[in-house]
């Protein structure tokens, strides 16, 4: 490490905790996690409410299986064609999954939503992490990882609380509809914060 790099890791400034290069992607993923947490926390209560507990039992299995099979392909596409080739589509598919979840009245539709969420949010999660690594030099990787996961946890932590406050007002379906709208809006935010500057696959800094 150079002296300058070393001084960046010492001291008790904001830069000791936050890596600014990880903030835009972190904020995007914060919104993603906020919306995903509505699924992970309230799915059990929601499916009980609409009488689809049988399908709910394998909801997360479908979700995980879809992630397992699509992630290698998504990762390869990410490396070959840059993050934008994956991120926009992932956010849109994620929003569609939430819409399908909000209108589901049959078990098969609920599982279709699980597949969409796996493809959308699963890719979003993995690619967000990969973008963080891509935009950060090695000596700031600790802070960048911390920043990224802190934003993810803010979303994952605030999500259930916000959804819980929404449910008495809008019902479960309305709440999932609002989450879908937030996800859709985060496409625009991702574009402004990171997407429009990302362009072609960048040369690795290390």
């Amino acid at each position, binding site marked *: 490490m150079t002296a300058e790099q070393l001084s960046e890791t010492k001291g008790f400034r904001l830069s000791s905790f936050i890596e600014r290069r990880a903030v835009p992607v972190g904020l995007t993923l914060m919104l993603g996690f906020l919306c995903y947490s509505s699924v992970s926390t309230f*799915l059990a209560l929601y499916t009980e409410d609409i009488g689809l507990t049988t399908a709910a039992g394998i909801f997360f299995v479908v979700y995980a299986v879809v992630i397992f099979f699509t992630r290698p392909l998504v990762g390869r596409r990410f490396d070959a064609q840059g993050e934008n080739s994956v991120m926009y589509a992932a956010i849109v598919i994620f929003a569609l999954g939430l819409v399908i979840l909000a209108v589901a009245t049959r078990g098969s539709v609920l599982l279709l939503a699980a597949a969409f969420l796996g493809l959308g949010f699963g890719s979003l999660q993995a690619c967000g992490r990969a973008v963080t690594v891509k935009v950060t030099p090695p000596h700031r990787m600790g802070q960048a990882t911390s920043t990224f996961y802190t934003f993810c*946890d803010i979303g994952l932590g605030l999500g259930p609380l916000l959804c819980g406050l929404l449910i008495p007002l809008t019902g479960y379906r309305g709440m999932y509809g609002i989450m879908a709208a937030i996800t859709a809006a985060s496409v625009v935010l991702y574009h402004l914060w990171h997407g429009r500057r990302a362009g072609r696959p960048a040369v690795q800094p290390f």
Partner: protein
Amino acid sequence: MGTTTGVSDKIGGASAGGRAWRSRNFMVIWLVNFLFTVVFLLLMIVMAKVATDRFGVSPAVAGLSASMFILGSFAVRPFLAPRIHQIGQVRILYIGTKTRS
């Protein structure tokens, strides 16, 4: 990630050559991460329902009970991040595991 910047250089991971995933250390880290994720997701998924079924709380409180973990996360993580290499990654992993179980 190209060059290893994370754990493997600290605890003597496998060399390059595309077989890093076969090394014992990688398998152990994989397993630790896997089990942590299982526990975390199970808690996250079950917490709100348990809070509602057993204690009859409102959805907002049920959501809050699922999201309380961020308090601990915020209390610890910002102070740990700049000191990861100072304290040692493996030692932090041990401390975290002991606190959790």
